[in-house]
């Protein structure tokens, strides 16, 4: 996903002429802006970009992009992307989905897309609630959440989207948030550049039905103690004074505080380390348990080829060894004969 830079393009060049119709204060606005910015930074010609979505608030995204776009049906965005990406591997395909669209009705296509590793960028706007249908629980809603479908407080165990993606065999797993524009931009850019299916969970505030769900991680006061920002090659340190981090004792992942200098066995983030990633995706700290929640690129496998590459390889091999398609021979098959004149 690299392309010659168009020096003159700006974020605005990626906007459509349609009025944006999310609720005032919706986190989606910030994401829209950062996606447009990233595209401009990468300089991808807008005619080569396609946004595909399902149904839900986030899935209105394509209408606001001045690129090609397909607002599909509920849960099927990755499935639509299959056919587009296989026949048009040169296009930049983005899939925009939410926790309902992508993890409830569309969970299966999502995990299969990740397994197959087509070269697409998947943005999962997670607001832990159904917005468009007015506030029911989603597969990421928290126990106790009161909604019209759970007036007594939900008791369903939620998915951890990054753990699910990793378990499905994703080659790129990241988490970011609507309220940290710089972080979001950098993660989105990494995702767009990843060769393969890049999965990005974006914490997105729904001011109408689930306001403040992520404030522990996004607001100035609480963010430093609850959000652990990962950087490749850097130690896993967080806290107001950056004085807490993780050390490993055997497989026991232990939280350590330190006042003078970093301990030697401190965990250094290596986004390509599958074993570390297996633990990181499971780390889902909350203000209650005193553990932080990781943000950034949790895992990136730069080695696995994409579906399209492998298909092209097979095709090339076959053409080389058996020749291109002779249509007449194909129609005749193995046993044919001629009658008359």
């Amino acid at each position, binding site marked *: 996903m690299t392309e010659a830079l168009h020096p003159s393009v700006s974020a605005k060049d990626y906007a*459509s002429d*349609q009025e944006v119709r999310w609720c005032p204060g919706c986190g989606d606005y910030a994401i829209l802006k950062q996606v447009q910015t990233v595209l401009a930074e990468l300089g991808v*010609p*807008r*005619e*080569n*970009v*396609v*946004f*595909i979505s399902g*149904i839900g608030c986030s899935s209105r995204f*394509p*209408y606001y*992009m*001045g*690129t*090609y*776009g*397909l*607002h*599909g*049906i509920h849960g*099927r965005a990755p*499935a*639509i*992307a*299959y*056919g*587009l*990406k*296989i*026949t*048009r591997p*040169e*296009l930049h395909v983005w899939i925009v989905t939410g926790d309902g669209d992508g993890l409830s009705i569309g969970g*299966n*296509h999502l995990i*299969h897309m990740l397994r197959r590793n087509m070269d697409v960028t998947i943005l999962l706007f997670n607001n832990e609630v159904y917005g468009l249908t007015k506030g029911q629980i989603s597969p990421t809603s928290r126990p106790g959440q009161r909604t019209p479908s759970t007036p007594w407080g939900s008791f369903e165990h939620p998915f951890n989207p990054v753990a699910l993606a990793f378990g499905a065999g994703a080659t790129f797993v990241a988490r970011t948030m609507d309220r940290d524009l710089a972080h979001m931009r950098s993660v989105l850019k990494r995702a767009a550049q990843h060769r393969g299916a890049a999965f990005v969970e974006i914490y997105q505030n729904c001011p109408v039905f689930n306001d403040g769900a992520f404030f522990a991680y996004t607001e100035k006061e609480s963010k430093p103690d609850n959000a652990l920002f990962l950087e490749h090659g850097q130690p896993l340190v967080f806290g107001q004074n950056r004085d807490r981090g993780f050390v490993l004792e055997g497989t026991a992942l232990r939280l350590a505080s330190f006042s003078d200098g970093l301990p030697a066995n401190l965990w250094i983030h290596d986004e390509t380390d599958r074993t570390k990633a297996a633990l990181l995706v499971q780390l889902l700290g909350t203000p209650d348990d005193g553990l932080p929640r990781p943000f950034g690129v949790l895992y990136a496998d730069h080695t696995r080829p994409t579906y399209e590459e492998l*298909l092209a390889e097979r*095709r090339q091999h*076959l*053409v080389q060894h*058996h*020749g*291109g*398609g002779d*249509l*007449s021979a*194909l*129609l*005749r*098959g*193995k*046993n*044919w*004969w*001629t*009658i*008359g*004149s």
Partner: protein
Amino acid sequence: MERHRIVIPDVVIVFAGDSGEGMQLAGVQFAHTSALRGNDIATFPNYPAEIRAPQGTLAGVSSFQLRFGSFEVLTPGDQCDVLVAMNAAALKTHLHLLKRGGILIVNEAGFDRRNLRLAGYPEAENPLTNGSLSDYQLIKLNISQLVGAALADTGLSVREKERMKNMFVLGLLAWLFGRPLETLEELVTAKFRARNPEIAAANSRLLHAGYNFGETSELFASRYEIPQAELAPGVYRSISGNEALVLGFVVAAHKAGLKLFYAGYPITPASEVLHQMSNLLSYDVYPFQAEDEIAAISAAIGAAFGGHLGVTATSGPGFSLMSETLGLAVMLELPLVVCDIQRAGPSTGMPTKPEQADLLQALYGRHGEAPIPVLAAATPADCFQTAYEATRLALHWMTPVIVLSDAFLANGSDLWRIPSVESLPPITPPFATEEHKSNGVFHPYQRDTRGVRPWAIPGTPGFEHRIGGLEKEDITGNVSYDPLNHERMVQLRAAKIEQIAAELPPQTVTLGEPEGELAVVGWGSTYGSIYSAVQECRAQGLPVSHIHLRYLNPLPRNLGQLLRGFRRILVPELNSGHLTQLLRARYLVDAKAYEKVQGIPLTVSELVEVIQERIHHD
């Protein structure tokens, strides 16, 4: 010993045996040989849903029905002249197919106590010896023993030899019906030569052994000869319905200059389409095995959005799953073709058996007003033409198109005169050009005079646009909730599909006069049976015509007028009267159904009876 040779116009042979006994292979090769010999052919394989049903049981029987003749063979035949029964279960399940006086070749080794018990014959009761088969020319052979003897000096195991019994039978039948042994030998050994020369040699030896056994034994009083059929000049092959579908799509995509994207999910009897497509990587085919049928059709839509031909094939349960996504395709007005290879339902039903009970679903099985053209194939070879025409319509009119086939067409095969690619009608998709812009702006729903919207492809600068499943404003394609706009769009989508009929040739009478006493109206795989029955009735002097429909939606523009020219209308269907209902509603004609919902094809004889009855019992 030179035997008396009887010339007959056609013959029907049924090979029946255990799933592992190679009945399908024997049938296919004999059919091939007969076609190469210059006969017209039709075949009908019939096998259990289980992969390997327990040996010797009724459920484990696999059979292959083959008919070849010196005239245009339209059906595999109602009954057979020759039944090969490799064991007791095969006899029990297929004896009803054998004509009185027909030849019954049985493998005695398949009628031991265990086999008889598994086939459900009463204790100590053996049909080969109790006189119950006296109506037939019973030929009892211990084929296992004969094969063992013929291969005595090879190193093959008993199990291997057992699996080659079919070759001995083929040799014997080749002698009986004057088939060239060399052709058969060539076909059979080609399958094994490379992988296992020893097996190939043994097969070859058994063909000869069977042939010679016919020649030297005195089991048969005569041999039979089926003269060559008079066929139009051309290049021929035999082809199954599923194979023909695949070729139709490949050629259509080629003619349109597009990649062919095929997405499928394994389901009987459509899986073969996925298999065939998967073999064609070097023909610009992009096969994709999706995680389910919803993903398959969605992926096909994705390919269509990308500017290529999206195709998927499935059967009933998968077709039901596609309902919602088909509605999206209607809204998007993108070209794709969905094939429903119908099987007996409802639900899982009887997966390997044919039925025509998905027609009303194809027409109406979507929420909202979502009209889609529906075409049905008439014969295995006709699947080529149907696939080609469906693709042409999809691309020409920017619409999803449904093709109806069924298990009978999918697995059955007949002779196909291969068309030249050049002779097929051109296919020119309405790609968007600068001329489609108004004041420099591209509007994805700005229709042409036919009501067709332009196809703008990602990667084309200046044509960026967004489409989706929400109702859209006329011309711009923007989301719109305006009531009158909605009605207008519903009407525009419907009018476009209806408009197709105006460009299609009018419906003709397939056989007989264009007006009169009785019209027998059919669609799909019943074509051969109905045609043959009408032919027979007309030979008897009955005033009956045959009208066969390829287009179920839109219906041909002159159909109402045509039907009103007949006093009575009979609609034989492998369902509970789907087309009947459609004709009654549309034309207010008193069409009457002949319904058969048994998971088996119509027979010519039952139809002849029904036609006679409808004409005489007024």
